[in-house]
C-alpha cells in the first residue's frame, strides 16, 4: 500500500462527490434542449446545492432521530461505494477488497432504506405514499438486480468488479457474447428505474406522480441538500458501474499516474455523456407508465437477465 494508492482512492471519492451534480446538470439541460426548450445551465445543480446549504433548517413537528440521521447515512453510504468500484483506476486500491458487487449493492440499498424510513417517520401523507411506492418498486427491481449480479458472476467467475472489468476489456469474444449483451440491456433498464427516469418515474414534478422525491418532501435546508446530493451521487455511481464494469471497460488509469487518473476522469465524463444521450432518448420517446404496468419493464429486464444466465451456460 503506497501513499499514491491512498491518494487515488481519495481521488475516486472526490470525483464522485464533485462531478455528480455536473452529470445531473448535463442531463437536465440537454433533455430540455432535445425538447426545444432552453433548459437550465449545466452548473445549476451546484447552484441549487449552494443555495440549500445556506438556507435555514425547518424541522417538522414530531421528527425523531431518524429524520436527522437519514440524510447523513444516505450521504455516507454514497461516499463508501466509490471505494469499492473502478472509478478512475482499473486495479484494486487498498480498501477495494472490503466488499464485492453484492457488498456495494447492499450499501447503496442501505441509503435508500434510511430515506424510506425517514419518509415514514415524518408522518406526512405524501411522504408515506412515496415510501410505499418506492418500496414496491424495490420489490420488483431487487430480484432482477440479484439475477444480473448472478449473471455477471457466472460470466467472470468472480464477484469483484475489477475482475469483470479486466475480462471484458481484454477479451473481445466475451465482450460480444450474447450473455454480456443481455446483461448490458438488463442493467440499462435497472439504471433507468433506479435513477428516477421514465418510463416509471415521472418527468414532471407534481406530488401525485412523485415516487422517490416524495419521500423527502418534508426536508429543507442543508439536510435536503445532503439528500439531493446523495441522489445525484447514486446516479453517478450506478453510471460508473454501468460504464466502467459493463459497457465501456476501457480508458481507465492502468498505472495510477496523476495524468492517467485525470485522463480517466475526463474519459468518464465522455462515457457518461454517451449514456446520458441514451437516457435522454428514452426520456423523450417514452411516456410514463400507469401504476399497474410498472412490472412490465422490470419483467423485461428480469427476462434479459435470465436469458443472460442461460446464454452463459451455453457459451
Amino acid at each position, binding site marked *: 500500500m503506497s501513499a499514491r494508492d491512498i491518494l487515488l482512492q481519495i481521488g475516486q471519492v472526490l470525483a464522485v462527490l464533485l462531478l455528480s451534480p455536473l452529470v445531473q446538470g448535463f442531463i437536465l439541460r440537454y433533455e430540455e434542449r432535445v425538447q426545444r426548450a432552453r433548459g437550465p445551465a449545466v452548473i445549476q445543480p451546484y447552484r441549487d446545492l449552494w443555495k440549500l446549504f445556506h438556507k435555514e433548517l425547518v424541522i417538522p413537528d414530531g421528527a425523531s432521530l431518524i429524520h436527522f440521521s437519514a440524510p447523513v447515512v444516505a450521504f455516507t453510504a454514497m461516499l463508501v461505494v466509490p471505494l469499492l468500484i473502478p472509478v478512475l483506476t482499473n486495479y484494486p486500491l487498498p480498501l477495494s477488497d472490503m466488499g464485492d458487487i453484492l457488498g456495494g449493492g447492499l450499501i447503496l440499498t442501505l441509503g435508500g432504506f434510511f430515506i424510506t424510513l425517514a419518509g415514514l417517520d415524518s408522518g406526512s401523507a405524501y411522504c408515506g405514499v412515496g415510501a410505499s411506492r418506492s418500496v414496491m418498486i424495490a420489490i420488483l427491481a431487487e430480484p432482477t438486480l440479484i439475477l444480473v449480479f448472478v449473471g455477471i458472476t457466472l460470466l467472470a467467475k468472480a464477484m469483484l468488479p475489477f475482475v469483470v472489468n479486466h475480462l471484458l476489456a481484454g477479451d473481445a469474444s466475451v465482450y460480444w457474447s450474447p450473455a454480456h449483451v443481455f446483461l448490458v440491456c438488463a442493467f440499462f433498464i435497472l439504471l433507468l428505474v433506479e435513477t428516477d427516469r421514465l418510463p416509471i418515474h415521472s418527468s414532471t414534478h407534481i406530488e401525485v406522480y412523485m415516487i422517490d422525491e416524495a419521500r423527502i418532501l418534508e426536508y429543507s435546508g442543508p439536510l435536503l441538500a445532503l439528500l439531493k446530493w446523495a441522489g445525484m451521487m447514486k446516479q453517478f455511481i450506478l453510471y460508473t458501474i454501468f460504464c466502467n464494469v459493463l459497457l465501456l471497460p476501457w480508458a481507465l488509469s492502468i498505472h495510477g499516474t496523476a495524468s492517467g487518473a485525470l485522463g480517466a476522469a475526463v474519459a468518464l465524463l465522455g462515457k457518461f455523456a454517451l449514456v446520458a444521450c441514451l437516457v435522454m432518448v428514452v426520456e423523450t420517446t417514452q411516456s410514463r407508465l400507469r401504476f399497474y404496468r410498472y412490472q412490465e419493464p422490470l*419483467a423485461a429486464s428480469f*427476462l434479459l437477465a435470465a436469458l443472460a444466465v442461460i*446464454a452463459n*451456460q451455453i457459451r
Partner: protein
Amino acid sequence: MTLPQFTPLAASFFSLLAIGSLLLAFVMLGSRWLRDYMYAFGLQSWLIALLSATMGYHVHNPELYLIALFTALFRGLLLPYLILRILRRLGADRELDLIVQPATALVVGAAAVVLALVVAYRIAAALGSDSSVMILALTVMLSMKLIGFLMLSVRHEAISHILGLLILENGIFLGSQVLIPGMPLLIELVILFDLLVAVACFGVLARYLVKRTGTTSSLKLRRLVG
C-alpha cells in the same frame, strides 16, 4: 447422423442470430399490439433468412441461398403483408381483456426457455454432441415452440393465433437450418406454400368469424352450433 462443425466466428454469428430470433419471439409475447407482433415476426424471418444464407456459405451449399431468398420473400414480406391486410380489414389493433398480463407472460416465457435448455442438453447428449451451437439451436427451437404454444393458448385474438402458429413454425425452421443444413429444397418449398395456405385460410376464417359473431376474439365463441 452427422452434425456440421463450425469455426468459432461462424458459431458466434449463428448464436447471435438465434438469440436475436428468440428475443423477437419475446417481443411478441410481451406486447399487446397486434401490429408489433407482425413487425417482430417479419424481422425474425429476415434474421432466419440471414442465418440460412450464412449457413449456405459455410457448408458450401448453393441451395441454401435459394432457401434464404424464399424465406426472406415469403416469410419476411408476403406473410406480413397478408397479415397486415387481414389486420386492416378486421379493424382489430390490440388484445383486449388479456388472460395473462404481458409481464407475467414474459416470466413464464423465461421459465419455458430454462425448460428448453434442460431438454436441449438431454437431446444433445443423446445425439452425442456437446457443440454449443447445437445446444443453442435446440434451445432456441424448443423455446420458440413453447412460446408459440403459449401464445396460441393464452391469447384470444384471431391474429395472435395465426402469429403463434407462425412463431412455432419459424422455430422449427430455424432449428432445422442449423441442425441439418442440407434439407432438400423441395421440402422447404412445400413448407413455405403450406404456410401461405394456412395464413390464407386463417384470413377467411377470421372474416367469417367477424361476420357471424361481430368480433375477432375467440373468447366470445361459447355456443356450440350444430
